[in-house]
């Protein structure tokens, strides 16, 4: 399926020289969201070349930017199509478009419409006025949940490699042959890792606002700790013995390390984290995740050589 739309000027319905001009990105979903939000209305749609990327990401990168907008106005011949000089842009184009620059270079006045295209009819009917709610970016349960598949897919390739590695590491040490050990010791490790992935990519986004801690890593650590405790319980480790205790410690280090890392990566999907904040969080989170992950792994393997 093709996800990029050809840039240029499109007619929605039967627009004339006085019809509004809406600007959007050449990502199919952006384009479709816009045109489907205006049923029964006549309008022009100016599609910018954002390399098939959505409005907000492209604006952040600069592709949905002043230069592209000014250029696209020129190449589309918009000045000959409409008699007015107003453009309605999505609010989230703000990071990439300087309204005053566009006015100076093209003569067109930029009006920032609502964040969601679905709010456009109300916006227009109110005389191009947006409510405070229309100008606030939400991060609802649904909006958090729809990001889960892409996070899972991104985690899949490295996860498969790690699971193979864990299975093989399970073969080391212990009393039985390599492959028997791998099956008996490696399998629980793979399951623990899968539980960690579930916690980090599925549970974390869903429970985000309710989990303690401002940093995403903190939220991930908490999910990981709970998962690890459950795992230790299910594995039936005897906490009265040293091997049991150390085995539990290994899981308590290993599992949260991964849920925390995955939770930390969700900052890239979120709508409210800042780059400065992410950098600050990573300064302590990354060493902790690496330390806990390697530490847990080491204890897990070493146990089989000592006992």
């Amino acid at each position, binding site marked *: 399926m093709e996800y990029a739309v050809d840039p240029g000027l499109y007619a929605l319905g039967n627009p004339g020289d006085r019809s509004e001009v809406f600007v959007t990105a050449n990502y199919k979903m952006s384009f479709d969201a816009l045109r489907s939000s205006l049923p029964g209305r006549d309008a022009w749609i100016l599609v910018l070349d954002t390399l098939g990327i959505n409005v907000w990401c492209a604006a952040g990168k600069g592709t949905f930017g002043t230069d592209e907008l000014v250029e696209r106005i020129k190449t589309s011949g918009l000045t000959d199509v409409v008699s007015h000089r107003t453009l309605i842009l999505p609010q989230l184009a*703000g990071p990439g478009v*300087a309204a005053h620059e566009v006015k100076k270079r093209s003569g067109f006045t930029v009006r920032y419409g609502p964040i969601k295209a679905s709010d456009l009819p109300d916006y227009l009917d109110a005389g191009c006025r947006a409510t405070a709610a229309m100008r606030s970016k939400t991060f609802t349960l649904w909006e958090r949940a729809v990001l889960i598949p892409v996070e899972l897919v991104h985690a899949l390739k490295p996860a498969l490699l790690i699971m193979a590695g864990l299975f093989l590491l399970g073969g080391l040490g212990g009393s039985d042959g390599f492959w028997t050990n791998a099956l008996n010791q490696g399998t629980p490790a793979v399951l623990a890792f899968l539980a960690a992935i579930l916690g980090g990519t599925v549970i974390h986004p869903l429970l985000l606002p309710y989990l303690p801690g401002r940093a995403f890593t903190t939220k991930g650590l908490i999910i990981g700790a709970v998962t690890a405790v459950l795992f230790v319980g299910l594995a039936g480790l005897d906490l009265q013995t040293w091997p049991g205790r150390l085995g539990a410690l290994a899981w308590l280090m290993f599992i949260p390390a991964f849920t925390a890392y995955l939770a930390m990566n969700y900052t890239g999907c979120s709508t409210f*984290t*800042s780059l400065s904040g*992410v950098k600050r969080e990573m300064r302590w989170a990354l060493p902790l995740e690496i330390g806990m992950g390697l530490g847990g792994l080491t204890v897990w393997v070493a146990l089989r050589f000592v006992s």
Partner: protein
Amino acid sequence: MNNLVYLKDIVTLVYDEGKCTGCGLCREVCPHNVFGMNGKRVFIRDRDACMECGACSRNCAFGALSVQTGVGCAAAVIHSLVSRKDTGGCCPPDISANGNCGKSTGCC
């Protein structure tokens, strides 16, 4: 979404009240209601709600606002730590080199 807050006292948002003309454009483009209007000038209502998207500074015609923007995801930060070239975080070096983020990358 009042309980969706990130870290405190960390953003690089700088506001020069002296340059503000009260046009209100920053309030229009800000997706997190960071600014309020105080009579004829803007003020920062909720600094910690700022996500450094840069919409306000980009659209302030009077230079009253500045903020350090950048790709705000952990993966991008890790990438810039690991690779020696500054690719802006997301794109692999060969694509970023000619300034064109190709459609083949599935990152954005």
